[in-house]
């Protein structure tokens, strides 16, 4: 077993990984940019190495600096967290070449699922239900042809995109040309790839995703679903497990399908299969995220497991040995992503934390990267803390989250706590009548 793990990330997820490593008796190396010299992950790791300036391209995204940090500290394994280099197959390969255990999927799996069009084709061939969609669009004439064949409304998507970026809804062929040109330019700029394709556009789908784990012994576990329909511009902000929209039959059918499919590709480590659920109750495959996700704690709470621990076991070649009870959820969990941003304009709100009181008590988990007196830099993701609750029922979890949000105080920066409170107080949310359009349609 490796004994020293470098965490190639920052913020709450770096802390999350450090914590499990420490519980397992593994030593930890934090890497940090200059502006993060006093950050919590820098302070709480056993060792910390400054790898570059605040600009993430020259620090957290700079592969040679991270590898060099592993070399000089003698780290034997690397956990990439989420974001940054977590889905970069070149990074995973470089780690392997340098004799570092990469705690995550194999590089070929990352490549396999990284391109949205090929991922969808693969999913289809593996027997997963997929949304009707097209191949790569050749040109504007082809676009018109393909869109009409599919039937409006359609969604124009970037093949190399992700995180909801680079998507455009078209209700009719009107304006298709200009949207197509814009999207192509955007995609080239953002992803270095201007391939676009169409998908059937669903008006009010739910976002449902399944957590999986695969080990080197060919075992695949499907650890239930999460509902992440509360999104703003395709960025999830509230997630829960389980989803009220799935029946026990839908859950077990889809779990069996996924287990078979992922067993076929020999998937390793943690991964998430994202689906849309339409109003008729059909689940269709959207994409596969070959990494740990921000919202993984809701699964941990209802399943009673530690997903980072399982990732480490898998990287060490151990077989999965989850208790049988971990395959059925216990109670209900909800996560609110606390972002440093204006709750109305969504403008980022970096700054110094002048006041801090995080919620506590029964059934409350806090995964946070901030501390009183600490700085939230403008250079990185605005996620500063995750407030996660667990209760016997969904209604009790909602009551607990309201209580927890009410006693959370973060001064010095603006946060989206008021937005969370508005969602949590909304009757439609309470009744579970939600879709990815919920926030858009929420009256202010």
């Amino acid at each position, binding site marked *: 077993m490796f004994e020293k793990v470098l965490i190639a990330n920052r913020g709450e997820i770096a802390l999350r990984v450090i914590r499990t490593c420490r519980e397992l008796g593994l030593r930890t190396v934090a890497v940090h940019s200059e502006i993060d010299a006093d950050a919590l992950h820098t302070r709480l790791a056993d060792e910390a190495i*400054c790898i570059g300036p605040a600009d993430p391209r020259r620090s957290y995204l700079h592969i040679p600096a991270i590898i060099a940090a592993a070399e000089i500290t003698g780290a034997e394994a690397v956990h990439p967290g989420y974001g940054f280099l977590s889905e970069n197959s070149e990074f995973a390969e470089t780690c392997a070449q340098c004799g570092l255990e990469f705690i995550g999927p194999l590089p070929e799996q990352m490549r396999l699922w990284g391109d949205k069009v090929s991922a969808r084709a693969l999913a289809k061939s593996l027997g997963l239900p997929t949304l009707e969609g097209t191949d790569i669009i050749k040109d504007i004439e082809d676009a018109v042809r393909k869109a009409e064949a599919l039937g409006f409304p359609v969604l124009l998507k970037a093949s190399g995109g992700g995180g909801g970026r680079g998507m455009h809804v078209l209700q009719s062929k009107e304006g298709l040309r200009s949207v197509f040109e814009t999207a192509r330019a955007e995609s080239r700029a953002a992803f270095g790839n201007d391939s676009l394709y169409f998908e059937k556009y669903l008006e009010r789908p739910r976002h449902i995703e399944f957590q999986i784990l695969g080990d080197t012994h060919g075992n695949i576990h499907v650890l239930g679903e999460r509902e992440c329909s509360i999104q703003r511009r395709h960025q999830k902000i509230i997630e829960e497990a389980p989803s009220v929209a799935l029946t026990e039959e839908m859950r077990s059918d889809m779990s069996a399908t996924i287990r078979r499919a992922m067993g076929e590709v020999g998937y390793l480590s943690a991964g998430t299969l994202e689906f849309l659920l339409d109003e008729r109750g059909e689940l269709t495959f959207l994409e596969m995220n070959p990494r740990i996700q921000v919202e993984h704690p809701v699964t941990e709470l209802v399943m009673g497991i530690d997903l980072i621990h399982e990732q480490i076991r898998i990287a060490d070649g151990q077989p999965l040995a989850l208790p049988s009870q971990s395959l059925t959820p216990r109670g209900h969990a909800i996560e609110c992503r606390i972002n440093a941003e204006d709750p109305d304009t969504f403008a980022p709100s970096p700054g110094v934390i*002048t006041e*801090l009181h995080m919620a506590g008590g029964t059934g409350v988990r806090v995964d946070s990267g901030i501390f009183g007196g*600490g700085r939230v830099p403008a250079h990185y993701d605005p996620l500063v803390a995750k407030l996660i609750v667990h209760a016997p029922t969904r209604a009790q979890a909602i009551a607990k989250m309201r209580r927890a949000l009410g006693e959370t105080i973060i001064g010095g920066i603006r946060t989206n706590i008021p937005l969370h409170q508005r969602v949590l107080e909304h009757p439609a949310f309470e009744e579970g009548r939600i879709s990815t359009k919920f926030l858009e349609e929420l009256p202010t």
Partner: protein
Amino acid sequence: MKLDLDQLRELIRLLDEANLTEIEVEQDDDRIRVRRDPAPAVGVPSSESKAAHKAQSSGSAVAPSAPEEDDGAYITSPFVGTFYRAPSPDGEPFVDIGDSVVPGQVLCIVEAMKLMNEIEAEVAGTIVEVLVENGKPVEYGDRLFRIEIG
């Protein structure tokens, strides 16, 4: 009195970017000062970390540059890696205390991922101190040499 708010905003941006606590500008009879006191360190976890925080958060050198300081200037490391004073284990050091250096002259090597990165002087001057031992790891921004400019 008429305030130039844009100018003021620009100063605040600068204050933030450079992570300063105060900027004061005096020109002719005008004076502007913006100031942000560091929040009192309540809640700052400081005792847990076992990490040797060699890198100063105030370290402003982001390149092997030679920023002026009261006691001379420093050459800092632009890479994470292992510091070598000579091109080979048995070789002579690139430079030693008392040596004069010119811009472009190789001062040392920082090895990372089996690559030998040569660190060059960007200013002319005299090496007055070598701050890292041969073969030791260095972080980004670590001070390698003190140099007297001129």
